[in-house]
């Protein structure tokens, strides 16, 4: 299972990439593999305030609908518009084109796992 070393993770299988105060967020390779073929991604509107630990969207696969939880608190500044028509990129490129949202982080991003800790949690 692919767990890039330069990202941070949550135990609920989201990944976070910090660049300045902007966090890019997606779901992990393990999460997409467990979900199976993703058919619909429900994302928040730009401008919405989110709190770490709260759900900000959902992902529907042929198996189930799963909530996605915000790893950090802040304001949604960008959502991945590509997922409306091509939700399958979450399966094919979860750490790249298949990202979900970008959040302008408000405060510290605490309690995230590093790659080693996340790998341990899923093995």
């Amino acid at each position, binding site marked *: 299972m692919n767990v890039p070393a330069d990202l941070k993770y949550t135990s609920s299988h989201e990944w976070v990439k910090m660049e300045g105060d902007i966090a890019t967020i997606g779901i992990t390779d393990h999460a997409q593999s*467990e979900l199976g*073929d993703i*058919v*619909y991604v429900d994302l928040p509107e730009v401008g919405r305030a989110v709190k770490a630990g709260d759900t900000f969207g959902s992902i*529907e696969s*042929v*198996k*189930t*609908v*799963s909530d996605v939880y915000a790893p950090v608190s802040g304001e949604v500044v960008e959502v991945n518009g590509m997922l409306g028509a091509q939700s*399958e990129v979450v399966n094919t490129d979860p750490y790249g084109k298949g990202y979900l949202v970008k959040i302008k982080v408000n405060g510290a991003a605490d309690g995230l796992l590093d790659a080693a800790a996340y790998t341990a949690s899923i093995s």
Partner: protein
Amino acid sequence: MKGQAVRSVPLPKLIFEKSRKGRVGCNVPVADTPEVDLKAALGQVREELHLPEVSELEVLRHFTILSHVNYGIETGFYPLGSCTMKYNPKINERTAALPGFSMLHPMQPASMIPGAMEILLGVQDMLKEITGFDYITLQPVAGAHGEMTCLMLIRAYHESRGEGKQRHTILVPDSAHGTNPASAARCGYDVKSIPTDADGNTDLKALEAALDDSIAGLMLTNPSTLGLFEPNITKICEMVHKAGGMVFCDGANMNAMVGTTRPGDHGFDCMHLNLHKTFSTPHGGGGPGCGAIGIKSHLEPFLPVPIVQRVDGKPSLDWHRPHSIGRVSPYYGQFLMEVRAYTYLRAYGKEKMHEISHYAVLNANYIKARLKDVLPAAYDRPCMHECVLTAEKYKKQHGVRALDISKRLIDYGFHPPTNYFPLIVPEAMMIEPTETECKETLDAFCDAMIEICTEAVNDPDLLHNAPTSQIVGRLDETKAVKELDVRWRTKREGVKV
């Protein structure tokens, strides 16, 4: 049977495709009355209806062939976990078809239909005794409808105490049926998930931490969706009550408890029942369903109207309920389902009622034990009416998923079990045999599962490509969701034919 066609029926055509212009289904004698110009009489007449034009024999063959490609409890074993696909005894249909029931008009006043009222009262009384609740209403017309009605009663209860706004959160275990959080959200509640501990029970520490004065209630399935009886149930109810919340029992798994133990005695405030699961009324298309609910007396003022009651020995309806949440369904629920449930309950009789749960639990444990070497249980302890197994090792070692095993099972002539539920079990296979299956059927099913697991190791593609014995092969579920196309269009509309 392996890999061979169970049935050799070609993919049936749609009845629209069999249509030929001018072909008629029945002969109508030449009219001996003057012909009426419909257009003149009605003002406007549709020129074409695009109904299929077929002969009576073709119609008969069409639907007979369709019935051959159907699979139901009357054609084979249907171990769909969480659904209690038990046999629906034919005597239920006989009584429901009696003209005294089937020819009733729902607007007939209660005083005109004392027999029907006795049925409603009889079902209420028997369900009260079986569940241990003080009141039953038969109005909700589906399981989730029963859940929602209970939540509305819980809300009305908190509102009556001035705590309606403050108590805005419903707790739901992470193993819950998806309808639980959905019903709570539909009722306007915030939903908070409670994890399951390492033994498969509700995590009491997490529950304790979640309980405060914002909690309206807890929705708990018992036995849980893992097929496990919650050993801390009385303690859980006490904890939630201490925090001022109510506890709802999702009764989808009541088949494990009928005649043996009663949710009303465990401390629950309310529960729903699926008459179409536990009490042998038909499912789905053969339904409709009935999501009867049971409640304790503190929720009674809020019950939906009308209440079916007995006053001075005579059945009547009580509409004068100032604190009622109102109506939740037309008339009194699905009346003919109550007739079927009544028949089932009376045919079993109080003395033998426990055999339902005893055999349901025995059968599930038998399957769990026979499959333990190939498909281990997610939590290894005695199960209730269903067992939840995991196919994780086949996924890791051979790239074969629970879905592939299920699809292969179709080639062996069995309906697949529930897959991928509960969500907390990887590659879950949830098997519920019910009490109505004999040992020979359970053995045939277990033999097939064991053989399929051997195939998974030796020839994984056999499973990846299954089923191969049916009129269609593996369906593309992703495409079906993304490009939903369920409507046949006529030639005039420019598509198909």
